[in-house]
């Protein structure tokens, strides 16, 4: 694995001049795509912030071949590219080996794109699917998704007098991906570059399907300051909302275990989207939130131990 200094010398897959919000952490992982590995890569993105912010014609922030076709089909589009890469490799065995990466937001992955994703994983194409989970449909102005945490205020789960924020817990897509028995499934976060780059490298280099779920805070969506993305992601891991783990060949490894169990409110109350939960009226939602986290964490440790 190259060191971070060595990586920084390689040309990034993604350049500055894009139009993502100031402080948006999505470029942290897109830049790494070419830096972690020597393979040539081709990227396909789902509709969403990253796509819109990186490709306003006639400009492009992508230094690698890149395609966007629609919202729900990044996995299917990239399946086609991977199939064609296979054909090309057969026709020209001397040609450089090309690796395919699909990228979708949580909306494009947990929700509208889950069918295409599931099928692509089941078919076993040689591709890495990266979900950057910012917990809502940000591009269309912050609507709830299946990844939106319990209680979060979005424009479709607004704070009201009788209902406040999202009423449901988020779904655990990483576990759904593990159930596909693919080569590699991992959760990473934009605040930990070493762990993140290791995981991107593994996902790209292995032959076969891999899934990487990256927590990527959103400045307006989480209602945090533009300099808070990294800290907010770090707190999500410290409070065990977003465990860093990987599943290789069915074996779980938890990559980071916080020294102390910080309460979830440490994370929630640094974000405007949960501010209303400070009202004692919604205390039960915090309890529910915390107990799901505790349960999931125990479950994960159990998986690691193989129990």
């Amino acid at each position, binding site marked *: 694995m190259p060191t971070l200094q060595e990586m920084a010398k390689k040309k990034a897959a993604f350049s500055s001049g894009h139009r993502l919000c100031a402080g948006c952490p999505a470029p942290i992982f897109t830049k790494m795509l070419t830096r972690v590995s020597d393979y*040539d*890569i*081709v990227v*396909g993105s789902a509709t969403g912030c990253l*796509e*819109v912010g990186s*490709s*306003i*014609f*006639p400009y*492009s922030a*992508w*230094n*690698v*071949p*890149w*395609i*966007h*076709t*629609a919202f*729900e*089909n990044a*996995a*299917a*589009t*990239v*399946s*086609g*590219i991977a*199939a*064609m*890469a*296979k*054909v*090309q490799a*057969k026709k020209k065995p001397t040609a*450089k080996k*090309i690796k395919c990466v699909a990228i979708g937001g949580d909306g494009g992955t947990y929700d509208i794109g889950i*069918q*295409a994703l*599931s*099928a692509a994983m*089941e*078919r076993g194409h040689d591709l890495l699917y990266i979900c950057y989970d910012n917990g809502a449909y940000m591009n269309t102005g912050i609507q709830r998704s299946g990844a939106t945490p319990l209680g979060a205020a979005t424009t479709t789960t607004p704070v009201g007098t009788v209902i406040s924020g999202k009423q449901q817990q988020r779904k655990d897509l990483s576990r759904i991906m593990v159930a596909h028995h693919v080569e590699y499934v991992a959760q990473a976060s934009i605040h930990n570059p070493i762990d993140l780059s290791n995981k991107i490298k593994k996902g790209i280099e292995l032959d076969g399907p891999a899934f990487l779920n990256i927590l990527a805070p959103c400045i307006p969506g989480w209602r945090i300051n533009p300099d808070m993305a990294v800290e907010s992601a770090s707190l999500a891991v410290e409070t065990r909302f977003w465990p860093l783990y990987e599943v290789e060949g069915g074996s779980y490894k938890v990559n980071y275990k916080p020294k102390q169990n910080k309460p979830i409110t440490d994370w929630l109350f640094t974000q405007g989207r949960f501010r209303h939960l400070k009202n004692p009226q919604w205390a039960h939602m915090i309890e529910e939130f915390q107990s799901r986290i505790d349960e999931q964490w125990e479950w994960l440790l159990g998986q690691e131990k193989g129990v």
Partner: protein
Amino acid sequence: MSKFSAITGNGAIAEAMRQISPDVVAAFPITPSTQIIEDFAKFAADGKVDTELITVESEHSAMSACLGASVAGGRVMTATSANGLALMWEMLYVASGMRQPILVAVVNRALSAPINIHCDHNDSMGARDAGWIQIYAENNQEAYDNMLMAPVITEHADVRLPLMVCLDGFIISHSIETMQLEDDSKVKDFVGEHTAYHALLDTDNPSTWGSLDLHDYYIEHKKGQQVAMENVIPVVEEVSERFYQEFGRKYELFESYCLDDAERVVIAINSVAGELKEVIDEVRDAGEKVGLLKIRLFRPFPYAEIAAALKNCKIVTVLDRSTSMGAYGPLFVEICSALYDADPRPMLYSRTFGLGGRELLLNDIRDLFEESKRYLDEGKIEKRSYFLNVRGG
């Protein structure tokens, strides 16, 4: 060796696909097109094609995977019908907007609801604004021949647009007809090698595809697409002529049957043309000047050429096998546009038939010709449009 074979329409399409041996096929089953995919899967399983077959989980993904593979640099195809084509709808526009020469065999079938697996043209007609070339076929031979011409048309440098080869569900897809299958190597030569433009897999020259394209460029890109569509007409003529030279079967933008001196003309699409021709022969034997204009190229629509072909006729009956609820059928609307400047302009009316597979029998067609005779004699169209052969009709 070219050979006569007894084969279904679907079988003929699959044969064409085997002979072309595209780089990637991504497909999902739906009646009545399923056999195409099954036959093709068997070809792949037996090593008779070099194709990567992606057995996707939906038609939306079929078109998405075709698109990915096409932009990646491959020659790609699929087949579908009705609801399958409807599920592709979003991606049809993306495929044409990205100027990808993707090929779809559309085995025409009625759209739900009510669910019905039989033939009509609402599926492909619903996609007529999607920026795809559409070529229709009367029978198995034409469907096969159109498949062979399709890659040459779509991949032409002046065109670079996706194409639907349309054939009637069951009537053609499942009927065995004796037809000529051409020699594999002659087909390969005719179709030629695929050339990719700015292939995504060319990692030394990275390209960006599918950008966000706002008000300062979008309309220019759409205009480019329109120009490419207009280029299709001469390209279809050129490729059809080459096909004729190579294989001896002649195709034009549309087929003219007894049209030159015809006073009364029926215009129709696909398999019903067979029955129409039979009745026209009878009516001609009785000394009546009747004829048929059979649509082949529906998109782009050859307005001027059709108007010129109809310049001697006095009355036109347009048969639509699809509906635009609350409006005239799609073919009728096009024919009206084509004839607007005609002077004198023939009398014109519309008949909708065959939805969900309802048959149009020879006697129904005889009645049609009697009706057009009466209208012409009386100099007046009694009913501009109605459904043929329908209860309470």
